[in-house]
């Protein structure tokens, strides 16, 4: 049973990680918490669903469509909320209120268009497939989820490290004024960052819906909290930390259910966060945190 639970936790954590990476990216670059990320997660799931259900296109295309749509929604939050607020010199907290308002609009729209009820992805090749290994049943989907999480992190880390865009992003993250001084198109970099983060959230949404066969307009609410928790565990703005934090949270949650029962599951996650913050005030992976927070 231990192996089974380990896999359960790991695949759950993988989805948390994919979501949190996008969250962390925006925070790391622009020092803002985009609270519409949960709604974007949900919209990604719905777009993927519509593509599969109504356009009868194969799953990989649906995931691509979901990622693009979600990325565009991420861009929307920059254009509609964060950029105007920055221009008008609003404080950081206004960004939170604004992105939350945007989230409400997105959730309301989803309710209107798709209805309030839970639906699911139609049965597909991935759904039932599983391998039996040492008494544990590994679903193909679980393996795929874990694979996607690792791939995303590696890809993103490589992007940030080696590509021109990545270099530009890192410069903007360090200081926007410096970036402008060296001629980096800061506005476009910001858009790119929001696009990537949105796409990641949307992809996580599709993964989640496939793993748990459930899509509803409210699925983004709880993931937002998890994303925040993962960011703290992994360090605000730290990409690799988001992966480790996500996997850790997934494992901790499953372990708590096994040991104590579902009732205290979230309390243990938050308790862990409190413990870490009290003993290591900058999270598990303290990197260049001096300018953050």
């Amino acid at each position, binding site marked *: 049973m231990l192996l089974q639970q380990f896999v359960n936790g790991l695949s759950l954590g993988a989805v948390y990680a994919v979501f949190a990476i996008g969250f962390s990216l925006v925070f790391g670059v622009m020092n803002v918490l985009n609270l519409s990320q949960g709604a974007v997660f949900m919209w990604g799931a719905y777009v993927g669903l519509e593509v599969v259900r109504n356009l009868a296109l194969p799953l990989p295309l649906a995931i691509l469509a979901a990622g693009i749509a979600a990325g565009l929604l991420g861009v929307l939050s920059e254009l509609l909320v964060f950029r105007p607020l920055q221009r008008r*010199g609003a404080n950081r907290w206004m960004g939170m209120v604004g992105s939350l*308002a945007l989230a409400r609009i997105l959730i309301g729209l989803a309710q*209107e268009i798709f209805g309030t009820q839970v639906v699911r992805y139609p049965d597909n090749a991935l759904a039932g497939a599983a391998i039996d290994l040492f008494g544990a049943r590994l679903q193909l989907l679980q393996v795929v989820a874990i694979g996607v999480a690792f791939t995303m992190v590696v890809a993103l880390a490589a992007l940030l490290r080696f590509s021109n865009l990545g270099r530009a992003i890192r410069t903007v993250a360090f200081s926007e004024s410096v970036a402008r001084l060296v001629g980096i198109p800061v506005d476009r970099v910001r858009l790119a960052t929001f696009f990537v983060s949105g796409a990641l959230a949307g992809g996580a949404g599709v993964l989640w819906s496939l793993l748990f066969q459930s899509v509803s307009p409210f699925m983004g609410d709880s993931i937002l909290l998890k994303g925040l928790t993962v960011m*703290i565990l992994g360090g605000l703005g730290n990409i690799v930390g988001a992966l480790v934090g996500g996997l850790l949270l997934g494992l901790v949650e499953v372990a708590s259910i096994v040991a104590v029962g579902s009732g205290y599951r979230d309390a243990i996650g938050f308790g862990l966060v409190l413990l870490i913050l*009290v003993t290591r005030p900058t999270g598990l992976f303290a990197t260049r945190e001096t300018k953050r*927070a």
Partner: protein
Amino acid sequence: MIDLFEAYHNVIDLCLLNSVLAYGCFLLLGVNLFSLATGGLMAIGAYLSIWLTMQQGWAFAPALLAAAVAASLAALGLGSLVLRLRGDYFTMATLAFTEVVRIIALNWNSVTGGALGIFGIPKLAETWQLALLLVLVIYLVWAVRSSGIGERMRAVAADELAVSTAGYDVAHFKLAIFTVSGAIAGLGGGLAAHLNMFVAPGDFGFLRSFDTVIAPVLGGAWNIAGPVIGATLLTVLPEALRFSAQMREILVGSALLVAVLFLPTGVASLPTVLRRKWSI
């Protein structure tokens, strides 16, 4: 007229209560602290006051006092642990606190009734009490802000490092403010519990904390009228837009977004913004 009041009685009560709670967060925003501990502190105040009025037969006022004291003690304890954390880490820690309290309440069936909650709570909170309390709180906050304490708060918000280098004990100062805000939250919790005859742990989670701290931000984090304006707006908007049924979420979100974009320093700045626009 009376009927109109009765029809919206609960809405008015909620506006008053939420405004009181908003001032608690307002104080903290004044020293750059974005706290999400309100829900957890409210829960402590609420459940204690319920236990006192229902099981121990206490009168309302002493029960409320006890609620405020208990919550301020909790705030004291929490504050000493987490106030040294910087900005967003502090916020996360307060969020973790609120959620842990909520989950304990969710599971502690014998005391809090667990998920089923407690019903049949005597409706002891009256509109006049809430109104009086709000007036009191506004006066106190105004008095503090106009005094030397207020000056020091603004100084800390502007440059904490400079203030502490100048020899002031910033840590203890922030702790004191946090404790006071905790007392307000506890008081609010006790009142909320005795308002709708029923409580459940879900009332005191992340959402409650967020709504409370958003109110002064929306209204204007540095304007004394900010918390009232923000709390009233957030309470009344869903009610006023009730006719829109399905579209309501979209309309509420849009209204808030518009408010945020056109009044980025808070809704309380509306008169100033209008004056500036019209004088041109």
